[in-house]
């Protein structure tokens, strides 16, 4: 919809023709049809294309007429064309039902005149489809009725329909508005005549085919509108009589009489005749302000079009106020039918459509951004080395790792079992260094045992190494034995053995292990004193003391040298 129409972007589609800047005014008064262009921006009037009854009746010629108007509008930079039809070739009044005589109901009556005219008209024989009715109020106090209806035929409906169709076809807003020319002319009375104060007045609107009589009371409020058909003459037959009787029925005494000549060749002697018949009345011809491009006898286009130069009102009355402000005089007699109007979306729907298009663009933009984000994320994932990684590679590596782990466990297992935790040669080295030759000590027996700890349930088991040494000692060896009998003394000895042999099981400062020593010395019962020079080292009886040495070294299960319980994996 947005693509094929400018309804969303061009507000003119939903404006009134009278509000548009560029307008084509068509005025048909029976004698002739005149057309004028009005450029509201430049406030200029120009002669419009030629239009005649023949053109109106020939669709092809009518199409050419509209095309020419469109071309001209476009060439002047217009984005829309308002066509205002001033119907000046007919004017009739129809009475309202007397029971509707309620000024407060005017709004409802006005609406009913458009939608259901039969419901408000006095004449029940009227066929609604044949004409168009619009209400005109009589605001004057003391009026017998609240208003009347103006009746116009639908002879110009084909023109309106053609304008509408061309606008749709060209996607160019052509908005029409059909006015009753006498009502528009009546609007101009407020600033074009100056009635005598406190006197009623009568406005006579002279058109080629009819004459309208508008009666205003002393407050310049409308009391009655009458129309008299000219029937091919210059003026209606019995016009003076009609004026006289109506004036009398309204009890107007010597009212002012103002004549508006609204046709090129209307009766120019009417004012003289009126003066002679109503010599106490003030009879004047209303002079129209001349506007360049528009003849003085057809002021309706200029009256109905907006202008920056608003003339000063010479009459201030309720009637003229509502004719202008409430636009009673500017009612559209030939609107586009509801069925045709409803084919197209309303302005609010077009706004909604436009707004939703933006919302849609936003939604799709967000969606596109999100998809782009997702795609970048996916490309980023795919480009990473991890993406091309095959899980089978991990399985192979895992299998290789398992194999290596088993191999390492085997190596660790044998490393543990083959640890130098208990060796005969290092024990002998310990014995030799603990009891060196000529040290005043003689070793009699030596036994060493290494036993595992009996605690069960652990992955590794500690063990105990025990040395039991018995022998003989002289006096000079007692201090040494006492030194060995201390923790520091035995630790120093073990450290020396560890250093000399490189065997870590003798290290006392490693892992979780402890060492306990106990030496018991007592007198040798078989001792016989011999001088030191004569004493033999191998002779047990030359040693005054015996000793009994026990060394216990315990390795806990948490010691690095603890034994693995498990089998080779």
């Amino acid at each position, binding site marked *: 919809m947005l693509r094929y129409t400018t309804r969303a972007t061009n507000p003119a589609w939903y404006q009134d023709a009278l509000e548009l800047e560029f307008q084509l005014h068509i005025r048909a008064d029976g004698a002739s049809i005149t057309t004028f262009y009005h450029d509201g921006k430049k406030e200029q009037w120009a002669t419009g294309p030629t239009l005649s009854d023949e053109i109106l009746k020939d669709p092809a010629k009518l199409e050419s007429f509209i095309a020419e108007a469109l071309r001209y509008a476009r060439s002047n930079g217009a984005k829309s064309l308002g066509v205002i039809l001033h119907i000046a070739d007919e004017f009739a009044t129809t009475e309202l039902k007397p029971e509707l005589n309620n000024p407060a109901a005017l709004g409802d009556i006005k609406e009913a005149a458009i939608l259901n005219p039969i419901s408000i008209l006095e004449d029940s024989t009227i066929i609604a489809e044949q004409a168009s009715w619009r209400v005109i109020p009589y605001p004057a106090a003391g009026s017998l009725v609240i208003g009347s209806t103006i009746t116009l035929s639908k002879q110009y409906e084909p023109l309106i329909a053609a304008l509408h169709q061309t606008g749709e076809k060209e996607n160019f807003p052509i908005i029409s508005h059909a006015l009753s020319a006498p009502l528009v002319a009546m609007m101009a009375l407020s600033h074009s005549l100056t009635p005598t104060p406190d006197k009623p007045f009568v406005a006579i609107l002279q058109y080629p085919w009819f004459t309208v009589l508008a009666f205003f009371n002393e407050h310049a409020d409308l009391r009655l509108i009458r129309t008299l058909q000219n029937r091919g003459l210059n003026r209606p037959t019995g016009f003076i009589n009609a004026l006289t009787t109506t004036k009398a029925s309204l009890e107007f005494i010597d009212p002012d009489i103002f004549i508006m000549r609204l046709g090129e060749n209307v009766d120019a002697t009417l004012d003289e005749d009126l003066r002679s018949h109503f010599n106490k009345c003030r009879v004047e011809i209303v002079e129209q302000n001349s506007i360049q491009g528009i003849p003085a006898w057809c002021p309706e286009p200029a009256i109905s079009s907006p202008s920056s130069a608003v003339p000063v009102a010479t009459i201030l009355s309720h009637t003229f106020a509502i004719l202008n402000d409430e636009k009673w005089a500017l009612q559209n007699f030939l609107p586009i039918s509801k069925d045709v109007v409803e084919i197209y979306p309303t302005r609010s729907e077009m706004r909604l*459509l436009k707004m939703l298009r933006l919302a849609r663009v936003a939604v799709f933009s*967000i969606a596109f951004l999100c998809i782009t984000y997702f795609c970048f994320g996916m490309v980023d994932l795919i480009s990473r080395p991890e993406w091309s990684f095959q899980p089978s590679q991990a399985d192979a590596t895992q299998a290789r790792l398992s194999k*290596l782990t088993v191999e390492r466990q085997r190596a660790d297992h044998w490393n543990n079992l083959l640890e130098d935790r208990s060796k005969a040669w290092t024990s002998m080295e310990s014995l030799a260094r603990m009891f060196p030759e000529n040290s005043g000590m003689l070793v009699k027996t030596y*036994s060493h045992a290494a036993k*595992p700890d009996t605690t069960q349930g652990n992955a590794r088991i500690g063990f105990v190494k025990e040395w039991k040494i018995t022998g003989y000692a002289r006096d000079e060896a007692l201090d040494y034995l006492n030194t060995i009998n201390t923790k520091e003394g035995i630790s120093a000895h073990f450290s020396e053995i560890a250093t000399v042999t490189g065997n870590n099981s003798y290290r006392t400062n490693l892992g979780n292990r402890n060492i306990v020593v106990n030496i018991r010395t007592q007198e040798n019962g078989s001792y016989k004193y011999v001088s030191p020079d004569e004493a033999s080292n191998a002779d047990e009886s030359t040693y005054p003391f015996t000793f009994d040495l026990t060394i216990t070294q315990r390795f806990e299960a948490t010691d690095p040298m603890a034994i693995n*319980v*498990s089998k080779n994996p």
Partner: protein
Amino acid sequence: MHLYRQSIILFGIVIPVAIAVGVLSIFFMIKSNMVESFDHKLKSYKTYCTAQNAGWEIEAGVNRQRKHIDRWNQQLSQETASAVTTSLREISDHLPSKELQQTAFERPGGKGGFGSISAQNSSQIRIAFRGTFRTIQRAFLELETRMPRLQLQDLKIDPSTSQSSLLNFQVTYTAWEN
């Protein structure tokens, strides 16, 4: 009056939004599946890298020990008693025979010493010698160096009653076996 409002809202925003949400959902699902798959692969990849690094480290350690392990395996494959006998014969060949006399060789049944608490196979060897202190110590040094699978269970040293210059040695080993 607003004949088209419902259609405009339906076709103008509801359906486009539904389509957009649908397409986004599809992409979101694809992305989620890819992320899930990637997380799985990443986990495998990290495991692979960790395993590879660990493998290299272990392999380096194993390679360093391989020659020892091979030697141990070769030794462990030999029968304990014959290996000890062979080693003692070779050791005694270059030591003074008077200072190293093997007086007994036994193979006690069952497990003993450290072997009693280990699931690893083991046997016991008991050997008796008569000889001098240092020569026997050298013999033990060589034997235990050649056969690291021997773990000393007990050692007793007594003076010889027949020859005062010699000592009696009785040693019991636990020998690890495959």
